[in-house]
């Protein structure tokens, strides 16, 4: 199982280590540093490394490496999932997952790690269980604790630990009972030069924020559940009812959680909301090239496309860009060779256009690679797959909760090839 954990920052300093079995010298990380050196970009460090006596499994989150040391055969996915859970928990507790925050809360983080694993076996990873045992720091609490000598470690057994609904604690009380669901869809797509869809799919997620008193039992049903043939659920969802009736029936965890992920892959269901007309060319002679990009709405379901942004990783030889945007601003970072065009709202009447010349380092050959365009966008109030929640019912409690559903479509990994 998981033997040790090292937290390593961007520049390669180990700033926290935790061992769940015997202590392993931090020199084991040298193998990792070697791989990191080789990979150049931190994103490209292979997640599973083999050393003579150990395995190193790492993730890269928030400019930090979470590096675990493994000595026996352990499912690597198990470890990776767990490491992400650690990062999630830190994020959940302190609002962000960064070196500074962890250093500021080092003892709490250490206590959390101790609570999350025992002998390398996961012990408590549910956020609400952890929060019952180790209370997240708030300014108010630390003031109170200082005054009263109280502690931020709970001394009763978390109720969720053993019940059949480990994700929910007992005795939850709210004055305002509310349940909000956000249906968020991301479009992953690759469009080729001519604008034809090479590949498109939707990654959907239903994020919930449920603050309900007692032990509510919720049922969420959809207008068109047939869309969903590839789903993964939070453990609270009763799978049998989904199989039989295509409704989500569950006792919700308290607070924020991801109710379900889904995946729509059949291409006729994936609407591509914008089209992109582009040409980026470099001349055979002379140190320059031309760029001309126009973006227009395509299938937007009658909604406005917002937060439009185009990012282009230019070939290394491109020194600068001299462009004019009819709408929005553009920046070109010479160091990273990234051109960003921030458009904002897409106006169907007056299509935004960016054009001008690119100058190339003199003497270098014409760049061979074709830069891809990365598109960012948002469409409010619509799930692009057409998924719609029809109703939410609550059983088990008497009060009437406040309910709400929001829809949002975003571009995920949306790229246009040139």
């Amino acid at each position: 199982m998981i033997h040790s954990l090292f937290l390593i920052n961007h520049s390669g300093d180990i700033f926290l280590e935790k061992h769940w079995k015997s202590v392993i010298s931090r020199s084991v990380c040298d193998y990792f540093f070697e791989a990191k050196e080789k990979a150049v970009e931190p994103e490209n460090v292979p997640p599973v490394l083999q050393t003579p006596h150990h395995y190193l499994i790492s993730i890269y989150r928030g400019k930090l490496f979470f590096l675990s040391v493994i000595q026996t055969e352990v499912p690597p996915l198990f470890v990776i999932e767990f490491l992400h859970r650690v990062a999630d928990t830190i994020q959940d507790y302190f609002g962000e997952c960064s070196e500074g925050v962890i250093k500021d809360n080092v003892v709490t983080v250490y206590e959390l790690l101790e609570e999350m694993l025992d002998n390398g076996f996961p012990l408590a990873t549910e956020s609400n269980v952890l929060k019952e045992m180790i209370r997240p720091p708030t300014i108010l609490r630390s003031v109170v604790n200082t005054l009263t000598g109280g502690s931020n470690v709970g001394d009763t057994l978390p109720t969720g630990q053993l019940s059949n609904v480990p994700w929910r604690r007992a005795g939850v009380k709210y004055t305002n009972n509310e349940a909000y669901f956000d249906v968020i869809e991301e479009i992953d797509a690759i469009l080729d030069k001519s604008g034809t869809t090479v590949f498109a799919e939707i990654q959907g997620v239903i994020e919930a924020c449920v603050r309900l008193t007692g032990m509510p039992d919720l049922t969420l049903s959809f207008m068109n559940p047939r869309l969903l043939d590839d789903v993964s659920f939070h453990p609270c969802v009763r799978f049998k009812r989904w199989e039989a009736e295509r409704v989500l029936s569950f006792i919700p965890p308290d607070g924020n959680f991801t109710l379900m992920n889904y995946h729509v892959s059949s291409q006729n269901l994936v609407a591509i909301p914008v089209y992109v007309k582009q040409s980026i060319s470099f001349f055979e002679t002379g140190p320059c090239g031309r760029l001309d990009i126009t973006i227009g709405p395509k299938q937007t379901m009658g909604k406005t496309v917002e937060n439009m942004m185009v990012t282009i990783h230019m070939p290394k030889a491109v020194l600068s860009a001299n462009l004019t945007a009819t709408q929005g601003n553009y920046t070109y970072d010479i160091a990273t060779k990234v051109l960003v065009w921030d458009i904002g709202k897409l106006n169907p009447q007056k299509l935004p256009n960016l054009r001008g010349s690119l100058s190339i380092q003199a003497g270098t050959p014409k760049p061979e690679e074709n830069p891809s365009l990365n598109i960012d966008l948002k469409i409010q109030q619509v799930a692009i797959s057409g998924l719609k929640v029809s109703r939410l019912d609550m059983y088990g409690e008497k009060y009437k909760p406040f309910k709400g559903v929001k829809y949002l479509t975003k571009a995920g990994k949306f790229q246009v090839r040139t």
Partner: protein
Amino acid sequence: MTDSKYFTTTKKGEIFELKAELNSDKKEKKKEAVKKVIASMTVGKDVSALFPDVVNCMQTDNLELKKLVYLYLMNYAKSQPDMAIMAVNTFVKDCEDPNPLIRALAVRTMGCIRVDKITEYLCEPLRKCLKDEDPYVRKTAAVCVAKLHDINAQLVEDQGFLDTLKDLISDSNPMVVANAVAALSEIAESHPNSNLLDLNPQTINKLLTALNECTEWGQIFILDCLANYTPRDDRESQSICERVTPRLSHANSAVVLSAVKVLMKFMEMLPKDLDYYGTLLKKLAPPLVTLLSAEPELQYVALRNINLIVQRRPEILKHEMKVFFVKYNDPIYVKLEKLDIMIRLASQANIAQVLAELKEYATEVDVDFVRKAVRAIGRCAIKVEQSAERCVSTLLDLIQTKVNYVVQEAIVVIKDIFRKYPNKYESVIATLCENLDSLDEPEARAAMIWIVGEYAERIDNADELLESFLEGFHDESTQVQLQLLTAIVKLFLKKPTETQELVQQVLSLATQDSDNPDLRDRGYIYWRLLSTDPVAAKEVVLAEKPLISEETDLIEPTLLEELICHIGTLASVYHKPPSAFVEGSRGVQHKRLPGSAGSGDSVDSPDTASAAGVSEAPPAVIPSQGDLLGDLLNLDLTPPTATGPPPAPSSGLQMGAMDLLGGGLDSLLGGDLGGSPALGAGFGAPPAAMPASFNAPVSGGLDDLFDLGGGVGMPMGSYSPPKTVWLPAMKAKGLEISGTFARRAGVIQMEMTLTNKAMSVMTDFAIQFNRNSFGLAPAGPLQILTPLSPNQSIEAALPLSTVGPVMKMEPLTNLQVAVKNNIDVFYFSCQYPISMLFVEDGKMERQVFLATWKDIPNDNESQFQIKDCHLNSDAASNKLQGSNVFTIAKRTVEGQDMLYQSMKLTNGIWVLAELRVQTGNPNYTVSLKCRAPEVSQCVFQSYEAMLKN
């Protein structure tokens, strides 16, 4: 206020201050101090000096303080075992605490303290906790057993904890069940043969029930445990599958993959015609696809596993090609894996799409990825025959880009395409040759050389091209050197007239100037092949090469089966069996997929036909030595795996290697090493190609031969005739030369006595030879340093080389010599015995001898009688051996000894002889066979001379 304040230090010394604070009366101050200590500890500072002070804080009712002290204890108890004992009492007391949280915490912490004295005290509390009324305590205690086992396995067994743990599998609480399973699995890993997890239908049922109710991590433990079970029949298998399927929709990817493992394994037992089987296949695709939308690290592990799944059951994901299309911001390790799977899924139906993508990738920025994309195009060509033409034209387009590494990769894969579709795309060779100069990577250079050698007859200037490579021979990598050697030998065999010099050059480079044993050995083998029997050489070197096939990069089926049983584990990431690399697992059992239920359904549905094909005709993996031998057959270019850990060599390679062995090399190997039968056996059965009639006597004779070799060694020097007068004094103004020839230590010497019969002193001697049949020439000047006075004689030995100009003489062994001194130049001619030219390595191998003997036409055979020779056959053999006439075998037929002998002349001509010796008959019969029959007469004369001296 943040924890960073704990790191501030003062001048007085941190430890000193902390000590004071720890002993403070105020609770709050104590807690803060412990926090500071912990903070120092987490960043690796040594605060062990504070041990007694921290332990003193342990007895508290403040849970947070207690936990902090426990954290400290776990870290430092090992280094301070005597002090740690102080804590034992508190632990034992805490194990009785009414609060289950404290009981659990105590037993959990005790288990983490790896000190023997403490573990002794742990047993009793642990026993109680395992039977605690509170499930939270029980589940903590279950894990504690695993901890204790890690520290002291014997203790755990003696105390009977394992049985208690087994009982916990039937616990009413699913969390306890899951932890018990996890603990048992971990313990079982160090006891591979113990029957700890004795799975039977009842326990399976309990596990399946717990599966629905426990945490995600518990589900992983239970699923992994289920995967070790072998259901009794297809019905049980189906019912387990049905109950596991819902796990495919879990948000935790590790749960999903463990569920996939169980299903992949148990599916094997389901009859293929069952409806449920089809349903299950359909259900497997979506979760696998979903894994690819997770974080990149998860994607990577998922992709490595999908790679296995696709090989075992390609039908699951055959319609999902597009999800493996590469996004440009994927991390490189994900890109490379996706590419690999794209190739595996490529089929006639989707090849157009795949090729378009690959072409797109070939213009990306990342060099590694571009290379792999180019290789992938080649693999497509090999895999999908209909696409080969398009692939080749795509590759040609890419070559036109002139991007250096793209061109090189393209050439490497085109070589593979040639291997797969011979005589189809050779028209592109011209384009390839244009790029010869830009190749700087060994693999590309080797590939290009291979192409030139293989198609030498179609490339007009093949010799020039290869010659240009030869210039920097020593700077090339071994791969290129080997390939160059082979290519030139091929060229020579195809165009022998123009390339003789080239081949000699490369052979001498390889054999004489190289330190690389592989290169040298290959050089020698070619050399011998060429010199013994060019026909055989042609057959070996230009043999039709087995076609390579797409299976070359598939994982070998038994390994694949084992890996399928290990889906989701490290083994599946590395594509190696766990036994190969997991250090902790001592002697892992090899897992096998269960057999299919029923015997009638061995025929797969058409969908699975390709998978079935693989398992029925497994591409055997070559044993390592085969690999090496495959090398000899110029197949050393890596098979077109391009990616992936262990590149499984193609079955074709193996065949090639075997052929080569069968063709007589095994005797070469066996013979050289002095008849170690084990070695011979290692290389397989004797070649079936030999006619039995030849085979029998010779193998009988082989033993004799070894006896001979053992007894004799090299007793006598080579035969040398007595000196005769070559130049009488009267013909040479008083200089008389008599002389003879001898072969000493491998050097031919002309031994002369020069006598001055004139009245004046002779000086300034020099010697020169006319061109002669075997290229004899003085290897140095004639060493006569002192002037030769009248009536004085001097002995001179002149070493001879055989690299001089050649002209056929009549008689063959005639040598015309010119000797000069201060008086004049004199000419004479003499004859040397041909036995001078028999070289030391003239011992032919048994099988080669047989083949050669057969191969030389009977017209070339001549028979001679040697009269009045009174040696027995052994003595004759000895005597002849002294002059480098080697007896290969001996057999006795009806009182007649037959000696089979070989000798080799300095110019590489082989002479084969059969010497018949009949006891009591002084007349020998010699039959000589040689491709150059002119030498037979001379050889016969030598025989007579050698035997009678």
